[in-house]
């Protein structure tokens, strides 16, 4: 994985949180997607936290879409967390991603 972004996955078997910090672009989106998919395969609920992203482009949007499609296949509950003024949120709103995946301002750690 590149230095561009750091992925940290935490939580329980019931609900995992994947936090991506740094930047997502064409160079690392596929890699991130693969890592998240591998790490969360058997988990019924997944939260992808984009709050710490400093940059994300349409490659990141593709990543979210692909995770959403996969979540449906797995019967997995997927939620995105991106605060209103974050770079990711700007793009996600622009792409109307909420029609596909719920986007939250924040999440309560450890329900």
């Amino acid at each position: 994985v590149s230095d561009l972004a750091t992925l940290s996955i935490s939580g329980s078997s019931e609900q995992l949180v994947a936090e991506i910090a740094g930047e997502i672009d064409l160079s690392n989106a596929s890699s991130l997607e693969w890592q998240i998919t591998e790490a969360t395969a058997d988990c019924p609920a997944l939260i992808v936290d984009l709050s710490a992203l400093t940059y994300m482009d349409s490659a990141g949007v593709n990543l979210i879409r692909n995770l959403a499609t996969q979540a449906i296949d797995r019967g997995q509950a997927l939620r995105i967390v991106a605060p209103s003024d974050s770079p990711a949120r700007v793009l996600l709103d622009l792409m109307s991603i909420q029609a596909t995946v719920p986007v939250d301002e924040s999440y309560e750690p450890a329900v």
Partner: protein
Amino acid sequence: VTAAILAVAVAGGIVAWRGYQSTRASALREIQQQATAAARNADTFVSDRLALLSTLASARGYSATQRGSIDRFLVRINPTAHGFSAGIGWIDARGYLWAASIPIPARLIPIDARSRQYVRDLLRTGTRQVSGVLFAQILRVPVIVMSVPTYGSDRRLNGILTGSTELGRLEQSERALRFGSTSVRILDSTGHLVIGNAPVTSITTPLAPSQLALMHSRRAGVLQHVSGALGDNRVIAFASVPIANWTVLVDVSPGALFGDARQKLEIELAALLAVVILSLIGAGLMARQLGNSLEREREARLRTELLEAHATRVAALPSVPAVAGATVDTLASLGLATAAIYLVRDKQLDLIAARGVSDRVRDLTAHLPAEADTPVAEVIRTGAPIQTNTIEEFTARYPHLRGVAQELRFNSTIAMPLKTVDGRTIGSLRVSATEPQWLDEGRRALLFGLAAECGVALERARLLEQEHQIASQLQHSLLPDQLITHERLSLGCSYYAGDPSLEVGGDWYETLHLPDGRVAITVGDVVGHGLAATMAMGRLRATLAALAPTCISPAELINRLEVFAEQIPGGASSTVTCAFIHPETGQLAYASAGHPPILAIEPSGSARFLERGRSWPLTFPAGQERYDAYETLTPGSALLFYSDGLIERRRDRVDDRLSRLRETAKALAHREPQQLCDELLARMTADAPPEDDIVILAVKLLPAVQLLDARLPAEPSQLAPLRSRLRELMDQEMIAVADRERIMLALGEACANVVKHAYDPQQQGEMRVTISREDHALLAVVADQGRWRSPRLESDCGRGTLIMRELSNSFDRTHVASGTSVSLRFDLDTDQEL
């Protein structure tokens, strides 16, 4: 010539002969007049005497019984003094003479006169009579007798009064009858001589009866070749005297009469003969000379024709080299092996034209010092031609030129100075023929003629070149010296004059700095082309240049220009388009008066016509409303101004030409303005030469400051480093946070698109990113040279495009043959706190 001389001689002879005949005729006329005049005198003589007798007869008292008193009366009259030298007598009505002025013995009275014809005639007719020549019975001399009747108191004829004139005394007393000429004679009706060239003392008949009869029948005339008592071969003029039945003769010899005429004729004929002989002798000599001079004349005529033809040819040539070239061509056509023309320039002779000279010789002789020891330099120094007739003669005179002379076979050469009309030597002309002694008089004359023409024509061509240069400068002064310069603008212009005789036509352009920092760009077109249009456009342009700084908008400028256009001959119906550009902001105001629309070329390479702000041409009609239209130009975009010559072609529809212009301009979008104009002109007129004037002016807005011009491999790994540089740039440019995000994102999408879609995955491609800053905007252009498109183009591109369009203030993408270019403009929130 001989025939001519003989013809002249015959004509001369005829003239002389006719002159002779005429002189003879006038001589004959003269003696005829003499005869007629003499006849008139004789008539007067007779009439006067008859009148005298009648006066005497009117006295009464003539009768036989009174014969004594009659005698005394008749003596007192003194008949001799009145021409009756043989006396006056009276005869009674029976024919007997009773009284007379001359003494008659009494025993003879009355003398029987009845046998006299005149007595018988008078008594029979009662009318006065003049007798023929009679022999007087008493005096025994020849006489003539005139007689008139006398009447008694009973008024009946009672006798005859007769006056007699002795012929021998008549000649003396009546000399006037003959005009002092011995050639006048008078004959009575039967041919007896009344008056001769000597006193008539006997009755003589000088003419033959037939001759006399001829004269009587004609009454007046001239007889020639008359022979008889008067002599042989006489010329006799005659006239009748009716009152006395006399005939007057003027008798001359032909020699006397025609002598002068004949002598004149003889002299003339002799002179003529002499002339003929001399002419015939001279003709032989002259014939040869005449033949020679005809030949010379023919040659001279051919020479003159050739010189005239040559002069006509060179007169049409506009340049010194053309005149010189045509002259050496003409010389070559005369059979000359070589010809060369030199002109003096700065103490040096320059070879202007040459024929028949090898390259080596041409190089050797292309420039000669004025003091060179060669014929072409020498004739300029001396002003006199130099001729040599054999190669030996030439090499003897110019030993150092032996090589050239042998190579070019200088057997006959002549070098001549070239002079202007006012006699200045401006150069020299040298020719050579390979044949020795080739230069005869005629050829020399021809060559001198050509040299004279050549000198004048060269000088004329030189002046023409100067004039053309001046005219060209004057024409170009009607257009701006140069385009304005501005740090934010790049300009270029191409011009084509439709009239081949002019360098500047009716199209014009002007670029100006306006006081408020804007620039005015204008292009106009005066109706028609040619000199009149050129002059009108010069005035329109100057007027516009003067007005522009005081106008706040293009529409106002056009309105004010229109007022002047009405007063400029040829200015009506001119079209003009004006644009005021603010280079810093890209704000554009434009207006067009009947002019074709400005073409706006975006930095991305797309192009569109600016169709608004349009109105009719100047003064067509006057006083119409003009409108401004507004645009904001993207830095990097260009405006193309042009005249209708570029888009109006007879064969093509204007719409098609406009489309072609737009497409051509798009293909050239990334060229610098000057190249753009030149290339557009070339491409738009490649199929057919332009029919009208054409002007093309391009102005390109330059970004204020270029922040970045990066060429990167089109790989995903390049995206993050690029973003880092961009962040630094935006820090440096102190761009607000909100702007930074969208700029970063939109630009990232543009670059990602290149990485994903521009190139075949197997291919190494490049992307070029340029970023520049305006006062209130940031401009980014991302370009590639790729053609490959992934199958997912539509959805992926659609997503990226949406992002770029949404996050930028202006998005433009152009696909051209050379690749794809995306332009993004971001208006900056410069008021926001950082």
